[in-house]
């Protein structure tokens, strides 16, 4: 398969369940009243991958995750997780999954250790004999040992987030679903999560991580899907996502108005500068770089830097989900 960018392209050929997929949804739909939160989503998460699930706020990422974990029922379509039909096989699949969904949720009046004991006791397959040791190991793995005995209401958001990850790691898992795992973490914590995800992936665990932070996905993931307004608009390996044949021109100039006008004459539409840098999609890659530079100079724009390069994940993301602050409806 050369390209799996558009989800719709892959559907027809993949109707048979694929054992190599940790998560597989076909035509997944979730409707709340009249609102279509998830619309015909076809996710294919390969086993062993670190899969980034990208999308603006409100695009339906968390709703999709809730359906995957059986917290909410799908309105239509099929879901297979770890090769098993969901939600029929929920009881046998869920023990193999560790998850952090929409932020941590804990009893504020209990200590970190007591909270993990409580949630572990809900898992019928978790042995009470090893519980204390497993709780201790999970707290150690997320760097919370020092605060294990403190009540959770005294925890910072970052500490609760770590405790949430520790809960996902209480048992050996085959799949980890982490919804915005670095939310509320300091830069140090963000790095630790990244390292943790890499080490889990090295153990062969599939990690499905949702985020709206592109850098995070770019640093951690092998695969990604982009969701926008309830639909998957792109899916594949990170390289496949970036490699679209599109070429961008980047110009560093203090005279962005002049430069924009000059580019417009060449048929290139540039947006507003970010960090003193203009960025624009080259509609026609045959336009020579020197043509652009001389046009800029002729227009009186001081060119301090110039580059022509392929799309970054951010370019793709913005192209797919739109720019600006509009939260998807």
């Amino acid at each position, binding site marked *: *398969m050369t390209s*799996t960018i558009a989800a719709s392209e892959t559907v027809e050929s993949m109707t048979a369940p694929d054992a*190599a997929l940790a998560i597989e949804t076909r035509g997944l739909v979730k409707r709340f009243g009249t609102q279509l939160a998830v619309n015909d989503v076809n996710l*294919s998460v*390969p*086993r*062993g*991958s670190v899969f980034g699930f990208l999308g603006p706020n409100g695009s339906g990422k968390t709703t999709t995750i*809730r359906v995957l*974990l*059986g*917290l*909410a*029922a799908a309105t239509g379509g099929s879901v297979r997780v770890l090769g098993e039909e969901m939600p029929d096989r*929920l*009881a046998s699949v*869920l*023990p*193999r*999954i560790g*998850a952090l*969904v*929409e*932020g*941590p*949720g*804990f*009893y*504020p*009046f*209990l200590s970190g250790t007591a909270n993990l*004991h*409580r*949630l*572990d*006791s*809900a*898992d*019928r*397959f*978790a*042995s*009470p004999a090893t519980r204390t040791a497993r709780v201790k190991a999970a707290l150690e793995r997320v760097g919370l040992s020092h605060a294990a005995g403190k009540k959770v209401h005294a925890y910072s958001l970052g500490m609760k987030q770590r405790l949430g990850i520790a*809960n996902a790691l209480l*048992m*050996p*898992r*085959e799949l980890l679903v982490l919804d915005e795992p670095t939310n509320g973490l300091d830069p140090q914590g963000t790095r630790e999560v990244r390292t943790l995800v890499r080490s889990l992936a090295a*153990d*062969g*665990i599939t990690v499905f991580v949702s985020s709206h932070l592109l850098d995070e996905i770019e640093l951690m993931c*092998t*695969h990604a899907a982009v969701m926008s307004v309830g639909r998957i608009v792109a899916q*594949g*390996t990170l390289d*496949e996502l970036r490699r679209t044949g599109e070429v961008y021109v980047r110009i560093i100039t203090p005279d962005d108005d002049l430069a924009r006008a000059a580019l417009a004459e060449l048929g290139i539409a540039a947006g507003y500068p970010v960090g003193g840098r203009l960025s624009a999609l080259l509609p026609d890659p045959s336009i020579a770089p020197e043509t652009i530079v001389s046009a800029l100079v002729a227009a009186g724009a001081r060119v301090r830097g110039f580059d022509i390069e392929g799309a970054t994940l951010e370019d793709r993301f913005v192209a797919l989900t739109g720019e600006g602050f509009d939260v998807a409806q």
Partner: protein
Amino acid sequence: MSLNSVSTARSVPETDTGPASPSGGSLLRSELIVLFRRGRTLAMLGALAAIPIMIALAIKLSPAKLSAAKGPPFLDQVSNNGLFLVVTALLISLPLFLPLTIGVVAGDTIAGEASLGTLRYLLIAPAGRIRLLLVKYAGVAAFCFVGTAVVAITGTLVGLAFFPVGRVTLLSGDTVGIGEAIGRLSLVSSFVFVSLLGLSAIGLFISTLTVVPVGAMAATVVMSVVVQILDALPQLGWLHPWLFSHYWIDFADLLRQPISFASFGENALLQLGYIVVFGALAIGRFASKDVLS
């Protein structure tokens, strides 16, 4: 998508070392620990314990002897025999204080977990939805038992400490020894405990309808008040045998000679009916509910 390299490297984690050892009792034990270690629960039990103490102090400190006509039934008998303090305290707690505390505990069962965000983590653990409901109901029932026991035991201890205790004159006029009297009081306490189980099931059901625990608590308490008002309206006589509070004060039947278990049985059957109906409603609602909190 090339995933051959990763998929071959995948090591299947061992989910269990031996054969699956289901630890079904674990969740119930954890539920009871969380419930009874919680400050709020302890405060409510403390308030229940204060009821017999307050009654005892009021009787002890009031100079005039009460006439039998005034105040709640049995109150005038307490100064003659301390064991009647238990009956008086249960009688006073049953219409309001016990339903109030049970409203708090039962209303909190599912809605409380939802508002803390722990419900989704219990479900993906996975606790199992029906198992979670059963454990939650068992927790409320345990609270009903402990709440009643706290009133009864405090009543006994305070009664013994403050008032003379001797042979007890029953409502039928017969007298029985202390041993027999304590047995009767245990029966009365069991009657009160059983009386609360129907309301507990209603509270559990209401709790599955919302993510706002205070709302579920208030609604459960309101239910108990409304039903008792309906039970007091003679025009609604046809409805009375179906109201869960209908037999509540009939525990007096256990204080007669010969002892009559008829109202105990009718009450238990009625409460069982409420448990079945509202338990089924709770399961029906919760089993298919989208957990979005």
